[in-house]
């Protein structure tokens, strides 16, 4: 018999009216977060959702947990403070591509490097929505926007590449229209101990409508994406007839039964592999290759907030001083009588 959930998705919803544009991908992601939290069963008051600035960063107001809508780019740093002060709380960072990778790039890479036990939901719509349509650090080269009327002349970040380059131990990618998998990926991210980065490709219905269409549309989603699951073969296509193999030092998409490839040749996804090489190659697949979705990397490593608390416990075991007075009396002190 299935165990009844302690909390329902409803328990994580606040009474605030959601103000995102109708049709915005953020609505779906919010629902997925509510559902994932219900699945995890953490009491709402033990959850803290920290956001920066941008459309997606309004999300904390729609949660019934503790929430802090902070300033542009600083969510990862503020969340680091929350989690380090209170490691027992479940701390989430809600951020967008501009907030996280442009103005907040430094805090993001350092939170990932330190492996603070945060669940970072990175809403990537490749545009600045709240300021009405400027290109973002994930916009493709040549992208025309209000601030790049002749197209951008710069390369975009690929969030996975940045997260892995910052020595990230958990990276997942998902799409706003796939509620089931997005919910599951969020739950896995929350269960992972350490900084987990979940990039959600979301659609901005007003300023960047259809930016992920070539991937997310039902019509070609099965052909153009591959959902990776740890321990399973890397298969994709309508009938799972395609798969990934290693061809020399590169990944190659093949059809099982064609050109001499059998099911045995298809790679098995190992998200727990410490070496980032294959995870990076999977993350970077594009054009003729399917876009990798699901948990690409999940590796156990010491996390920061626990290590800080651990070091305190270690010192306290050796040093009995617990008050300022005791500390001072241990120093170079002389007495005047």
């Amino acid at each position: 018999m299935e165990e009844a959930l302690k909390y329902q998705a409803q328990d994580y919803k606040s009474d605030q009216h959601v103000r995102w544009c109708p049709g915005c991908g953020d609505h779906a992601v919010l629902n997925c977060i509510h559902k994932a939290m219900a699945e995890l069963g953490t009491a709402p008051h033990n959850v803290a959702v920290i956001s920066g600035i941008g459309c997606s960063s309004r999300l904390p107001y729609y949660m019934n947990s503790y929430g802090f809508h902070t300033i542009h780019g600083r969510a990862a740093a503020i969340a680091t403070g929350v989690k380090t002060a209170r490691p027992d709380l479940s701390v989430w960072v809600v951020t967008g591509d501009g907030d996280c990778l442009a103005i907040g790039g430094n805090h993001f890479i350092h939170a990932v490097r330190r492996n603070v036990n945060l669940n970072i939901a990175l809403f990537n719509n490749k545009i600045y929505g709240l300021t009405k349509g400027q290109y973002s650090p994930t916009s493709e080269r040549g992208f025309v926007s209000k601030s790049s009327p002749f197209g951008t002349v710069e390369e975009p970040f690929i969030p996975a590449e940045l997260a892995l380059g910052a020595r990230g131990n958990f990276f997942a990618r998902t799409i706003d229209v796939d509620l089931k998998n997005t919910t599951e990926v969020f739950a896995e991210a929350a269960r992972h101990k350490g900084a987990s980065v979940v990039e959600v490709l979301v659609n901005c219905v007003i300023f960047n409508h259809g930016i992920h269409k070539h991937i997310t549309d039902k019509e070609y989603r099965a052909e153009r994406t591959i959902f990776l699951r740890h321990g399973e073969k890397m298969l994709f296509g309508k009938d799972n007839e395609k798969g990934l193999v290693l061809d020399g030092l590169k990944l190659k998409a093949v059809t099982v039964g064609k050109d001499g490839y059998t099911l045995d040749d298809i790679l098995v996804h190992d998200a727990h592999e410490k070496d980032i090489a294959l995870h990076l190659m999977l993350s970077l697949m594009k054009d003729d290759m399917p876009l990798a979705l699901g948990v690409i990397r999940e590796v156990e490593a010491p996390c920061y907030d626990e290590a800080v608390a651990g070091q305190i416990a270690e010192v306290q075991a050796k040093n009995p001083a617990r008050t300022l007075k005791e500390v001072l009396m241990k120093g170079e002190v002389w007495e005047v009588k």
Partner: protein
Amino acid sequence: MPPLIVYNTILYFMAEQTKVMTLEKVVVRFSGDSGDGMQLSGTIFSNLSAIFGNEISTFPDFPAEIRAPQGSLSGVSGFQVHLGSRKIFTPGDKADVLVAMNPAALKVNVKYLKPDTIVIIDTDSFKKEDLEKAQFATDDPFGELGLTTVQVVAAPVSSMVKEGLAEFGLDNKSALRCKNMFALGLVCWLFERPLEGAIHLLESKFAKKPGIVKANIKVLTDGYNYGNNIDASVSTYRIESKKTAPGFYTDVNGNKALSYGLIAAAEKAGLRLFLGSYPITPATDILHELSGRKELGVKGLQFEDEIAGVSTAIGASFAGALGVTSTSGPGLALKSEAIGLAVIAELPLVVVDVQRGGPSTGLPTKSEQTDLMQALYGRNGESPVVVIAAATPTDCFDAAFWAGKLAVEHMTPVILLSDSFIANGSSAWKLPDLDTYPAVKPPYADQYKGEQVWKPYRRNPDTLVRYWAVSGTEGFAHRIGGLEKDYNTSAISTEAMNHQKMVETRQAKIDRIAEFIPALEVSGDTDADLLIVGWGGTYGHLYEAMETMHERGLKVALAHFKFINPLPKNTEEVLKRYGKVVVAEQNKGQFANYLRSNIAGFNPYKFNRVKGQPFVVSRLVEEFTKIVEE
């Protein structure tokens, strides 16, 4: 023992015999190459004197470069100790004794010499090439600098150190590292300080390196004996010990005392202390101190930048800790936006700004009071914060305690201003008895007793403080943030009247803190002709100036501000009580202008110096006397 070399410039003095002079106070300045260990000699000497029962005040003056070229003018590092048998307020203007380990040290310190200063030099470092490095044109550095009356003790320190350590089998470089102890030994002889105390301090400092302890003690003793044996024709000094209040004492500098004050506030409040910081001169020692206090559960942590430092502190406060960040002027500029967040979110936050010379990178190791306006107003929007300024190295403890107390009890950012001078300056400090300090009571949400249902911005009607619902507390889950909130519902609001009300409320909340801080005190004559007004780290100099003027029969008083925003309730009454008021500060008049903007018709004299160096008491006396006599 090699003979004492006497420069012809001090011939006049040779006629006199060695004498012991009993003085009330004396200033000793140790100086040499930044690698010469002068800070250590100075620290040990000041500790010795404090233990002996003298009042002390010290100030290290080091170059911005860690290792400038050896022997160069830019590489000179100094440590000044002022000791006395009566209350000492400053490290002193000019030196009675200067240790100059090389010609560069002599040249750089000329401005700190009196006509009869005793100058101790290492003749081995006064060779032709050393003089050239210090840009002397001739081989008579004293003559070239016009020092015709100083008393020179010229000893071949380097060669005597090498000789003395011959049996230790140390290489040349390691042996010469002990030079500073020879100088210390000489100074101890000069002041009749028994060596036992110094030996004890060396033993505890190098406890893990017995070889180094032995070598240092040998050289220290050699230096002392050398002074004794040469029968040098210089005065030796006796500074009587002072009757001090019974209790336990330690030597503390401002940054340490400030760190302890934050710990004390957290301890009294029953809160965990969290410091988010980023290294910056001259504030870094606060990070050093607090990152080492793990036994107390302090989370003192270094982050990726200044903004992360303040942001993590705000996050920690949101989660129920006392969040603190420490920095200097340039870092405060970077933290501005986040401080504004703590203003609108109404969370406790202490921001420590150990001021240095500016603008931009400015003079990183020097001292100024030029961040006052930045502290008061350096944010977007109407964003009042509490501003407190520490007056002396030991007052850094009380100021930090108050900063923590007000931040927690009034749910507000507090900017605590220190400066490079008091941060690095030290004096003997009686260990505080925390029982005598006021309680610190966090306004937790469960204290809300209003009739309406609790909301994050429900306020205590007396203090206007909102209640603190710490993350993780059942029944109080809520959302706050940088957007304006509705006064009643605490939901996001862009409504015009509500914004006006919230702006007024945040201001009134800070203004009301005047009810909870001590009144402004005035020292000196009640019927003074001149009231000296200062704030922050200039207290010692201003007090000494007042005392000097007093001794000369002038009627003066001093009002020194620790609480800058809000101002103490009796500020206007005090300032208007005197015919003439001079505001003295190390900037272009920021506090004077601030007072003028708060007190109608207030038009003080201004004394402003922005040199990166402490005030000079004699200059203050001169200028203030002119005002009195005007």
